[in-house]
């Protein structure tokens, strides 16, 4: 079966600076769950930017959902991006919208009906423990609550690929565990999950495959990830 993600000799730099990612060659199978770990500046967030199609590689070949990313036209990107859920380290919620409207965004962009949207969004917000804050604006919520909204927004439309950058960094262990269970459940129904995390506790607890990054390279090769470089 064709992998969901394939990197071949991929490098990426910001502007004219040094390469933030170097010589990445690996593939990630459909339906798998990976942690990416490594020290700050190792390139975890840059790798997630490539995967979320917000940056293009400076060199090399990236194949995502069977498509060569470099050959994608601008008009092709929205459709692919709707298949990807992203949880940002800094949440990136829209402060002027309520929790419900923030979470509903991906469904609205996909053209879902209003009634369906409200039912799904409310149910998910209740599930992540925010049933009492449906109409609250993000600035009135704690960091942990905002993070849960961000996660709910990323998973509301059952993405094929879920990318999360330190998703449990601002929540206590109990909530963090619950959120990781949500990712696990999504993974079981077919979503490929990639989580960048510093949390050794979470990584040990969930026993998924781990990509170790350092200085823009993947320097360990977990057995499930085929690295040919």
């Amino acid at each position: 079966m064709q992998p969901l993600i394939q990197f071949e000799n991929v490098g990426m730099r910001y502007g004219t600076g040094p390469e933030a990612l170097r010589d990445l060659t690996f593939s990630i199978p459909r339906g798998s769950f990976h942690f990416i770990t490594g020290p700050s500046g190792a390139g975890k967030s840059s790798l997630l930017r490539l995967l979320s199609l917000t940056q293009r590689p400076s060199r090399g070949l990236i194949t995502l959902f069977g498509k060569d990313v470099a050959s994608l036209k601008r008009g092709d990107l929205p459709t692919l991006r709707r298949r990807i859920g992203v949880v940002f380290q800094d949440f990136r919620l829209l402060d002027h919208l309520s929790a419900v409207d923030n979470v509903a965004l991906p469904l609205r962009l996909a053209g879902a009906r209003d009634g369906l949207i409200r039912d799904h969004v409310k149910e998910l917000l209740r599930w992540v423990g925010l049933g009492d804050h449906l109409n609250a604006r993000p600035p009135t919520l704690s960091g942990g609550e905002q993070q849960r909204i961000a996660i709910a927004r990323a998973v509301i439309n059952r993405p094929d690929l879920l990318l999360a950058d330190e998703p449990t960094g601002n929540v206590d262990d109990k909530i963090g565990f619950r959120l990781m269970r949500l990712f696990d459940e999504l993974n079981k129904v077919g979503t490929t999950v990639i989580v960048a995390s510093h949390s050794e506790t979470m990584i040990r607890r969930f026993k998924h495959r781990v990509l170790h990054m350092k200085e823009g390279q993947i320097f360990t090769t977990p057995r499930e990830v085929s690295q040919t470089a």
Partner: protein
Amino acid sequence: MIRQLFYRLAPDRHVEVPLTRTGADRFVPWLIAPMAYLATLSLIAAMASSVLVDSWENGLTGALTVQIRAIDENDRAPADMSVSIGQALAILRDWPGVAAATPIDPPEVGRLLEPWLGDDLPLDQLPLPALIDVTLSGDPAVDVDALDAALSADVPGAAIDDHATWLADMRAVANTVTLISGILVVLITVSAVATLVFVTRAGLAIHGHVIALLHIIGATDDYVARQFEWYAFALALRGAVIGFVLALATLFVFDRAVAGGPADQLPDIGLSAAQWASLALVPVVSTLLAAVTARVTVLAELTRMP
């Protein structure tokens, strides 16, 4: 109010880019209002001048005036003006294409001159010319030069005024007014469009992080552009209606102010229903122009984003 209008006009009423909070674009209605105001007045001026000249032209087409000077080019007065008038009438009534020739009474000539000379002058002692009002049948067409030559030969001091030169001058004035109005409208439009482009770009810069997020989630450029487009539409609609209403109010006040004055002697320059309808297009076009400008600007700028 703008926010309510925006939300009411927005097609899905879900507005992710918080444009109403920018502040920089609050002056947009006050940019569009003078544009609509000046465009409306310019169009009215162009239409009114055209209507005025058309009216004069229609009134004078098919008519001539024969003038018999009281003193000829040699400073000699005709022996008997009534004889000269009779000779001229005889020539005119026999001329093919002339339907009627009627001398204008001296008191009527005096009345025509009243606005310039007043009503207390001894008109009967002044060397006023005799005037003959000539109506043409149109079939056959009168050779004005031949008629003028025939009159000059037999009637000392007679000459034809077919008003062509005067009408040509008036038409040139009307065309100039139309041209200046057109240039004004174009200049106003160009400056308004340039400012709207600047305001839209500022909005894009201010809300760049929101737009980037929408893109990551899967928004198309069209989706983002629509939000700016509707906002510009709502702002411009307000300004355009204000400008249009003010222009009509100005016209009304002007009409009242000149009523009873010398302008009353001008022909009626009331605009036709079609002209009023085209004037009503000013706010519509201004609003659509603002919306299209915002849309095109956003789409052009977004192609530079990842």
